[in-house]
């Protein structure tokens, strides 16, 4: 295993910024077309009316809310994982943290779109904001949707800061090597970074504070998203397990998203010497842990419901377990539990390819999980006369696909304009460190080479 050093790192990691291949334009056009299709779909939903979606009485939440929970879940990839790895000072984290933190910001942006897309009258969405109106009407602070608004905004602000802080020294590196307009843009972004000991010290302090502060925020965000369901007296929703269950599921799908992104970056940006198999193996082990945790939560939720045998809950339980939603349910169990357990549990399969296969499975499985939480419960709520079902229409499918394309597009653009691997952190991890490049306050970086 070779470790690139010094100027090699600069050349390799800045190459995507300075040179543009035709592949970049093809990718942007490809993903951009899907995003445009999604925008058209949304506009036509506003224009023609919400009726072109597949929602119907009594299933009033469907694909859009599924996507909302799914993307907020994916956002737990980054900030949480990278904050934990920073705090335990895992040496192998260095090439991984930034691609993880970027996922958080973009997934949050996409996830936060869905509550707007799903509104009946999206042009009035600002009524959720606590702004002082002349009629003194505030949002209803008892509503979990208003809690969502605050939770997501807090997490988004925090994770943008958490992403931006460690980028400042890298912006300075780009600034020093670029010319013309590019130099001027990166000069603004670098915020006057000179690399003085005082600046390094402040950066380290700020990152320590953010890494600690962002963890409770991340945990609270998905707990509050779970409150959207668990606060309502709907069978199989109104349960205390949802908070930790959602947080665990979010981290689970987040790790899967991170693994897929890393594999794609490694292949397309030729980062084989930076993203080593050991990174995939370590994250694969984390995926395995989360798969076990997810399985534990599902087992708990299902067994307790079955044993308790409440008539309302059992109507939903039967639907998912062995009636109309059973094929989806057992696909979910296979993709979220059996597949990652096999691929990540057996060392032979814990390769990059194995990680990617397991991760794609987990992404699909976790999307299904959110769908299966929402739709069967709404369709089988108490009175048998009002049972109903739901089938997505093209507008919802197009917008769902567009959300994945938007994630890919934003990621491609980010990797084009900002070094996707933190240059200075990589250099700080070198043995022995180049003295002129290492920040003075990173003693602990060298001391701790903890491996998870």
């Amino acid at each position, binding site marked *: 295993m070779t470790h690139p050093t010094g100027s090699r790192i600069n050349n390799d990691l800045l190459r995507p910024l300075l040179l543009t291949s035709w592949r970049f334009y093809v990718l942007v056009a490809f993903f951009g077309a899907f995003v445009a299709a999604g925008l058209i779909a949304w506009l036509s939903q506003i224009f*023609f*009316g*919400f*009726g072109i*979606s597949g*929602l*119907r*009485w*009594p299933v*009033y*939440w469907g694909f859009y809310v599924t996507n909302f929970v799914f993307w907020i879940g994916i956002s737990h990839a980054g900030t949480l994982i990278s904050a934990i790895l920073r705090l335990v000072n895992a040496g192998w984290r260095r090439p991984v943290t930034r691609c993880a933190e970027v996922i958080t910001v973009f997934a949050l942006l996409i996830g936060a779109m869905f*509550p707007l897309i*799903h*509104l*009946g*009258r*999206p042009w*009035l*969405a600002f*009524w*959720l904001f606590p702004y002082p109106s002349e009629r003194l*009407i505030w*949002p*209803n602070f*008892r*509503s*979990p*949707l*208003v809690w969502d*608004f605050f939770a997501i905004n807090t997490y988004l602000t925090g994770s943008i800061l958490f992403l931006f802080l460690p980028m400042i020294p890298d912006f300075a590196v780009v600034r020093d090597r670029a010319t013309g307009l590019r130099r001027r843009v990166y000069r603004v972004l670098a915020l006057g970074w000179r690399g003085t000991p005082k600046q390094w010290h402040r950066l380290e302090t700020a990152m320590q504070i953010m890494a600690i502060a962002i963890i409770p925020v991340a945990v609270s965000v998905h707990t509050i998203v779970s409150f*959207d369901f668990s*606060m*309502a*007296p*709907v069978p199989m929703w109104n349960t205390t397990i949802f908070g930790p269950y959602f947080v665990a599921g979010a981290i689970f799908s987040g790790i899967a998203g991170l693994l897929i992104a890393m594999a794609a970056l490694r292949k397309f940006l030729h980062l084989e010497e930076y993203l080593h198999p050991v990174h995939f193996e370590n994250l694969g082990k984390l995926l395995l842990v989360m798969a076990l945790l997810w399985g534990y939560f599902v087992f708990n939720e299902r067994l307790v419901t079955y044993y308790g045998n409440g008539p309302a809950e059992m109507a939903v339980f039967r639907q998912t377990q062995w009636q109309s939603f059973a094929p989806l349910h057992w696909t979910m169990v296979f993709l979220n539990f059996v597949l990652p357990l096999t691929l990540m549990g057996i060392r032979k399969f814990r390769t990059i390819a194995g990680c990617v296969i397991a991760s794609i499975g987990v992404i699909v499985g976790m999307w299904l999980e959110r769908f299966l939480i929402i739709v069967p419960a*709404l369709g089988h*709520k*108490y*009175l*048998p*006369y*009002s049972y*109903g079902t739901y089938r997505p229409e093209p507008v919802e499918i197009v917008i769902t696909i567009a959300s994945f394309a938007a994630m890919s597009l934003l990621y491609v653009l980010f990797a084009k304009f900002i070094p996707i691997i933190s240059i200075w952190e990589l250099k700080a991890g070198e043995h022995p460190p180049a003295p002129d490049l290492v920040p003075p306050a990173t003693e602990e970086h060298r001391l701790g080479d903890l491996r998870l």
Partner: protein
Amino acid sequence: MPRWGMAVDLDRCNGCAACVVACHAENNISTVGADEAARGRAKHWLRIERYWEGEFPDARLTFRPVLCQHCDNAPCEPVCPTYASHHTEDGLNAQVYNRCIGTRYCANACPYNVRFFDFFNPSWDKPLHLQLNPDVSLREAGVMEKCTFCVQRIQAAGTQASAEEREVQDGEIQPACVQSCPSKALVFGDLDDPGSRVSQLSRSPRGSKLLEDVGTRPKITYLARQSQA
């Protein structure tokens, strides 16, 4: 302050659905057409639930009119982020259409599924468009609508009574469903007035609430069937 409530005598209900028709006419509930209705987009603020009991040939048909239960402890109210769904002083579950942004959370929280979403702007099959009620506002696409206990009639009766400097009499207010019921299965009135017919019926040993164990404290009392017919 009155506390409006209703009693439904299931022994008297024969499932004729006159109340459903009257409700549509009184409250300007738009018709959605056969195709949309088949997709589950029909908006019946009041519906007749039909249940079969027993196996053929000993089957028995029972009906239950289900409308908004105007719960004292309504799950739809706290979840609304904009106070579109809120509790009035006289105990109604009001829905402020102009304040609704269409999160549809209230409909999910409602155990009775009596809240309906407007998927399109309202339209009526001719000639129904000529009989709209001027006292009831139309709902545009993207908002939730539901039974109001015919709040326009409650308001009108209150205004009339105060103009004549008297109290609203028991039985003076009749929501459209109550007025149209040929077998007088529905009774509306003030639950806080112990002498009113509705509070007498609500205290009947035959009375029960729908999904009482969910803890919503509904204001509609269903009087159980006694006849075997």
